[in-house]
């Protein structure tokens, strides 16, 4: 690969800057990597694809990593993916070993990030090569599988499936796109709204509304609780840190990184599942499981290696199949759309430079995250004290920029942001799931084309079951994910 074709001081600066901003977002409870990417997406308009992705991938890696700071120092997970870091990190901090716990988490995050990057580099091109052979039938079934996995992992299977189909339904509002083989006719447009909804709802305002404005409304609902003061931050005294603490823990680190990566590859599962699975495995295989939850460093290692393992894993389905691995990578689709690039099986082959740039950006982001957090952890610890009454108004303003500039200045996109911000808030109140909704919304138009064109070509519904062994295999996976989830939920009741 010709590194010089994409790497430049600006590329490195954007990756490092993105990582820094991502860490800050991740470190503030209530703000997530997804929100960081949503807010900074408009900045990529003028950067070009490679530089834009460098910034966003930095935000992604930084956002996931930053969550460990409040998880350890305050006992509050900064992001959902650091939920299990609190279990052992916070007891360590209370015992005066906050700095040590942070450094363990930072090192484990680096290992998780690098292992997942290696798997991404090896696995995504192979999967993409395989997926190139897929016909519309298999492509449709992969979307169905992605939705079924996400619905299966929802707290309520029925509501999860409903959310996914609702996302598809709303994505169909507008014109049946001629460029995708449609007939150019309108559908599902309420009378009087034809002028605004002819092209349907734009992806980015919907995403920014659901992840940005909805989070602000959620905070406002609970009264925008006062931030933490410096005395709440239990960083403890400076302690000499040695890698010897990882002696006997390398299997735990590698296993957790691989679990995180695997969870990331499953569409829409998310970082919290990655860290919970890694943590429970570390506990199961530990010689001292009774120490877990009481300040065991191995617990922090497993949780952080697991959630950072997710970062590379979630990019595998995105870059090889065009299906986002989690909500943050769903936003990355927005970045590709802005630059007129379609992600899917042909992406890596057609865009080798961008592919290499993404791998390098991830590498730089992981290394930058480690260097910045390891050496400046006491400063990052103070980030949790930044007051929300300053941050959230600025985020609201940035949300508007992102929505307004997506289609070069259409005010309806800003109103879409408000509509879906309120809708996102309501969804949580009626227990609908945002992740399946988003994936349904993103993949709905493609699912329609694959479904209708298959029927136009073959004229028979049985083709979805008989086209190939891959189709049969995908149906088995769909049945297993839905059936398994239904069984587990019934058993739980």
């Amino acid at each position: 690969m010709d590194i010089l074709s994409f790497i430049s001081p600006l590329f490195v600066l954007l990756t490092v800057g993105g990582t820094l901003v991502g860490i800050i977002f991740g470190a503030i409870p209530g703000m997530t990597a997804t929100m960081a990417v949503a807010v900074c997406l408009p900045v990529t308009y003028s950067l070009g694809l490679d530089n834009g992705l460098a910034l966003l991938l930095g935000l992604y890696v930084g956002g996931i990593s930053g969550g460990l700071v409040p998880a350890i120092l305050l006992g509050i997970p900064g992001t959902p993916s650091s939920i299990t870091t609190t279990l052992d990190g916070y007891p360590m901090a209370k015992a005066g070993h906050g700095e040590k716990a942070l450094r363990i988490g930072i090192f484990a995050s680096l290992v998780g990030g690098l292992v997942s990057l290696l798997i991404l580099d090896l696995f995504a091109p192979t999967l993409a090569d395989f997926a190139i052979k897929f016909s519309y039938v298999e492509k449709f079934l992969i979307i169905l599988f992605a939705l079924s996995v996400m619905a299966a992992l929802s707290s309520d299977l029925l509501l999860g499936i409903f959310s996914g189909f609702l996302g598809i339904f709303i994505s169909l509002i507008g014109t049946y796109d001629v460029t995708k083989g449609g007939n150019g006719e309108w559908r599902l447009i309420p009378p009087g709204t034809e002028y605004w909804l002819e092209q349907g709802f734009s992806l980015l305002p919907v995403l920014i509304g659901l992840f940005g404005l909805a989070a602000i409304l959620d905070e406002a609902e609970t009264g925008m609780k006062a931030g933490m003061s410096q005395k709440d931050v239990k960083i403890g005294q400076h302690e000499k840190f040695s890698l010897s603490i990882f002696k006997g823990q390398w299997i735990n680190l590698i296993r957790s990184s691989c679990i995180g990566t695997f969870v990331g590859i499953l569409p829409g599962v998310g970082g919290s599942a990655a860290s919970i699975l890694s943590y429970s495995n570390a506990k199961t295989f530990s010689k001292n499981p009774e120490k877990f939850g009481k300040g065991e460093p191995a617990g922090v290692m497993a949780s952080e290696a697991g959630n950072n393992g997710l970062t590379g894993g979630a990019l595998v389905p995105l870059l090889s199949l065009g299906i986002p691995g989690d909500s943050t990578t769903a936003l990355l689709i927005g970045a590709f759309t802005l630059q007129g690039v379609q992600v899917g099986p042909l992406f890596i082959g057609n865009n080798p430079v961008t592919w290499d740039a993404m791998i390098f950006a991830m590498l730089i982001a992981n290394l930058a995250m480690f260097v910045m957090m390891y050496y400046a952890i006491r400063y990052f610890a103070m980030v949790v004290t930044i007051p929300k009454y300053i941050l959230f108004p600025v985020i609201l303003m940035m949300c508007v920029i992102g929505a307004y500039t997506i289609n070069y200045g259409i005010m309806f996109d800003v109103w879409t942001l408000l509509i879906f911000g309120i809708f996102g808030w309501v969804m949580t109140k009626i227990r609908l799931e945002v992740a399946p909704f988003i994936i349904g919304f993103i993949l709905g138009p493609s699912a329609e084309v694959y479904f209708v064109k298959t029927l136009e070509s073959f004229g028979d519904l049985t083709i979805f079951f008989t086209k190939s062994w891959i189709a049969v295999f995908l149906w088995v996976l769909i049945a297993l994910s839905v059936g398994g989830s239904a069984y587990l939920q019934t058993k739980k009741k």
Partner: protein
Amino acid sequence: MGNLTHVTINFDTSHLIFPTLIGCILGLLGLAIVIRDRRQLAASGTHWRKILGEMDKTRFFGTLALTVIYFSAMVPVGDIWPNTGMGFLLCSIPLVAASGLLFMRDRTAKKAIPLMIVAVAAPTLVWWLFTDLFFLTLP
């Protein structure tokens, strides 16, 4: 069986096939949810009353009101100085200041001064970045 699974697509009405199918699935899922959760749905009034009761109404509805005013004002203000992004800048400064004060607990001058500095600096910086550096249209 062959006749049951056979489908003929009319291109002129092909735009309605998938939405109709998804609509039917949503209807069935909705019905299943209604049957399963009928007791909870019957008590949904209590559920929403509880949410509204526990909610910080001033901050929640204040945020919504400020957002609506902000969105509504941007274009008319921007039309006074077309193609300069002034609508965004002149509306964002009061939005950041007002919503910051709304979100703030125990309002004091010591807390308000940094907020006011941010309220002026952040929109100005963003406005300059997007209009002068990225050449993007703002209201």
